[in-house]
């Protein structure tokens, strides 16, 4: 990273609009046009297996149509989110060779569709990432492994990846920072959703206390401690007469709301190639009540980050009563305001975004 302030690129992942797409309110083209018209871009991230029928097979005609559409509406493709479906066979996990080929096909799809980054996930080991580096280089696609709760930047598995990246020295290996690893509270909109499912205020206060206790302790040291915390949520629900909510409390309390501190990201900052601006809702003051969006944007600006931030709204899982479109617009306003408060700005112009993203990834190539 250079010594100057960063200028992150504003953008969105279509994952934020999952309910609208799944509910057939918008098809892929309609959603892309909406993103452009309403100004959620210019950065555009898409999950391959969510949005492209037949993925990862992408024929040239479809790829041409897609690239023309993105150009026409003035968006900039940032990251194609791909998946390591290691458990695709019911009776066994993929062999290492099968896994590498499974990932190669998706990296090929990213290149065809014009995405300079493929978001990959934690199920890829340091050995797999090392093996994939020359493939990424051949296709010109940077692999950005997502650091997502219940992991966090200084988690042993992430540090092992970082150390391997350093050894391998490929500019095509990096991380996607997911803000869900550094959350400061149990999302109020999820508490409201539980209330609507009949959970009492007394139980919800205990859920918040349990999470706050974990926040005080910091993120779980390892998978065993993670499991204990998951179990504590299940136990709490059972002791309070709502065993049906236990797994939900556990999944969200540990897998969505990661309790690491914002400066934990410094452990891997030079390798951050992409950002998921994960968030859960906007309160009546127009702020994100449980994700420190302002601190995270400040950190990125101060650290000279000029890659994309995909706003990733996860509240759609439970918030059926508010429009995701307005909530995402409000969260992006917080990002822009935070960047300005840090003496910089978010990039919202497509041509400028294209140039800056090229430099961000190109700078990585020269590093």
């Amino acid at each position, binding site marked *: 990273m250079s010594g100057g302030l960063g200028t992150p690129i504003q953008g969105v992942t279509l994952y934020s609009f*999952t309910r609208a797409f799944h509910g057939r309110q918008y098809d892929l083209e309609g959603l892309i046009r909406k993103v452009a018209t309403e100004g959620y871009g210019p950065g555009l991230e898409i999950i391959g*297996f969510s949005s492209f*029928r037949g993925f990862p097979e992408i024929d040239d005609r479809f790829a041409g149509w897609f690239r023309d559409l993105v150009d026409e509406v003035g968006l900039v493709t940032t990251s194609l989110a791909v998946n390591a479906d290691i*458990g695709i066979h*019911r009776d066994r996990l993929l062999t290492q060779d099968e896994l590498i080929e499974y990932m190669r096909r998706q990296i090929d799809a990213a290149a065809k569709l014009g995405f300079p980054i493929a978001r990959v996930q934690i*199920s890829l080991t340091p050995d797999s990432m090392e093996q994939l580096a020359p493939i990424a280089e051949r296709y010109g696609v940077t692999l950005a492994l997502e650091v997502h709760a219940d992991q966090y930047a200084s988690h042993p598995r992430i540090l092992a990846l970082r150390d391997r990246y350093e050894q391998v020295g490929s500019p095509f290996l990096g991380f996607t920072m997911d803000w869900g690893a550094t959350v400061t509270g149990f999302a109020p909109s999820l508490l409201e959703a539980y209330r609507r499912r009949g959970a009492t205020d007394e139980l919800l206060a205990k859920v918040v206390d349990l999470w706050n206790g974990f926040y005080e302790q910091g993120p779980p040291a390892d998978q065993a401690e993670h499991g204990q915390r998951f179990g504590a949520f299940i136990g709490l629900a059972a002791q309070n007469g709502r065993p049906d909510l236990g797994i939900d409390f556990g999944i969200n309390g540990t897998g969505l709301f990661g309790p690491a501190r914002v400066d934990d990201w410094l452990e891997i900052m030079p390798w951050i190639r992409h950002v998921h601006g994960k968030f859960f809702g906007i309160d009546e003051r127009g702020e994100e009540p449980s994700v420190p969006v302002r601190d995270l944007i400040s950190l990125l600006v101060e650290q000279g980050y000029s890659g994309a931030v995909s706003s990733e709204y996860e509240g759609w899982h439970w918030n059926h009563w508010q429009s995701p479109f307005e909530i995402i617009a409000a969260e992006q306003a917080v990002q822009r305001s935070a960047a300005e408060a840090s003496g910089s700005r978010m990039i919202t112009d497509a041509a400028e975004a294209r140039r800056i993203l090229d430099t961000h990834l190109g700078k990585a190539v020269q590093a």
Partner: protein
Amino acid sequence: MISDRMIEAGTLTTDGARAAVEVRLPWYRALPGSCIAGAALAVDGLRAPAESLRWTMNDRTFTFDELVDETGEWWFPTDSAVLSGEIAVTADGAEHEVRVDLTLYIPYIVIGENEVLHIEEHDTKTMTAREVVAA
């Protein structure tokens, strides 16, 4: 999770011996047949025998045993699949309570040695039945 939309409203059909209903994926991304690990179908509390269940997607019909090795056909998030089984339902204009249970494997979330996450979702909706001629 999108389990509230799993049963497509108004899609219950019957040929007298078998009932069928359209089912939507309660997950955000496409999954192959091999990850559709099991289902149950009940109408008015009567469950279709497990061996009578059939799963139709992309114009192909499978038993659940056949789905185990099916990595070629994928269930796309905006497509309806059809779950059918032996339950006698009468298309008499009356409301019927339909319940679907579904078990899905999430192939990229590894939770242990040789084990991936599976999720169990269910949905219940009330609708009238439409009569169709047996194929």
